């Protein structure tokens, strides 16, 4: 918009054809993200097939621990993300950072477990576990996350986020965790070595990617 020499002229120009607007609500963003997550999960089920192990008791505790932690990260970061759509000042919600730290316990446990193997304590783990090398899960989780990231970016573009870097981190955490969750429902590999690495890796990868990719897309 052109610059006006006089502020009154600017105000007159702005108010020339005022139209009613409907306030943007964070819950609209939550609904959009939930819809994108369900769509991503359905796409994964169609492509890879549903794993019934979670229904008939075959799924190990690691499957539940990793996926429930992903759900917690997804819920906390999505809630924080949609609240950035309206400009505000003051304390920021620390829940996404703490829940991500909780999720990071899994790869740390894997690392310590592998170190224990070196010391002769296997704790039921083995480096010959095929899940340790099946990195494709992380790639599929990342693929599913792109749909959720797209929905998040579209929602934020309607709003006015004032902390672009934080919004970028939150887009990554939300899309990475929910995208991984959407894909993991189809994965029959449920050892700690697999779930603790490849099922949670998309969260950290997406967070770093969107921290840098998102700001130019949501700047206003």
């Amino acid at each position, binding site marked *: *918009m052109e*610059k*006006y020499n006089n*502020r*009154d002229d*600017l*105000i*007159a120009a*702005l*108010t020339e054809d*005022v*139209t*009613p*607007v*409907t*306030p*943007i*609500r964070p819950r609209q963003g939550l609904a959009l993200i939930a819809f994108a997550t369900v769509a991503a999960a359905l796409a994964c089920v169609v492509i890879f097939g549903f794993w019934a192990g979670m229904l008939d008791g075959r799924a190990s505790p690691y499957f539940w621990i990793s996926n429930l932690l992903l759900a917690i990260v997804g819920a906390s970061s999505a809630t924080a993300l949609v609240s950035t*759509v*309206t*400009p*505000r*000042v*003051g304390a920021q919600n620390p829940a996404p950072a703490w829940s991500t730290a909780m999720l990071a316990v899994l790869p740390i446990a894997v690392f310590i477990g592998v170190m224990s193997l070196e010391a002769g304590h296997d704790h039921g783990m083995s480096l010959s576990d095929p899940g340790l090398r099946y990195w494709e899960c992380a790639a599929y989780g990342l693929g599913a996350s792109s749909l959720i990231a797209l929905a998040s970016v579209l929602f934020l573009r*309607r*709003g*006015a986020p*004032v902390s672009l*870097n934080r919004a970028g981190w939150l887009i990554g955490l939300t899309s990475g965790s929910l995208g991984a969750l959407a894909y993991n429902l189809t994965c029959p590999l449920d050892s700690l070595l697999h779930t603790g690495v490849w099922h949670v890796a998309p969260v950290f990868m997406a967070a770093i990617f969107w921290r840098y990719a998102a700001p130019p897309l949501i700047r*206003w």
Partner: protein
Amino acid sequence: MVADEPTLARLMTAAQGGDKAATSVLLSEAGLWLERYFRRRIPPHSIDDLVQDVLIAFYTKRATWDPSRPFLPWLAAIARYRWVDHLRKVYKHESQELMDDDASQDSDEEIVMARVSLDRLFGQLPERQAEVIEMVKISGLSIREAAEKTGQSESLVKVNIHRGLKKLATLVEKAE
């Protein structure tokens, strides 16, 4: 005198409903509030441009105000966002000039702007960075003169100015 929070919130509710008169009054009141907000933050000659910039952002993003929340913190958040954007542009411009090696040819206006914007934050920079920014960007010395005075090489002076300005921009962005 600027209207109080409840009055502004009522005007904003009316503005979201498409009330032309309320929108006009609200923009005028917001303009006065913004003038006061920016008075302590940027040089006087830049205030009106920035106020206009914020008023346009205010108008185009008016749907992002939640009627259940106070109005002034919302306006302050937009003002701060635009202010940081303004400073980023100033720093980017200064940094670009530095890379072009035209630092000593800054206009008076830019030097004053740098002085006002940087002074408050200088205390948080390493001494070597603050020292060369002060010499080159504010006192108008050339890179070579600053290098001779500080004993740093010309390349190091450039690097320190570049890093210092970048750090200042980060500090401003992080400031609540």
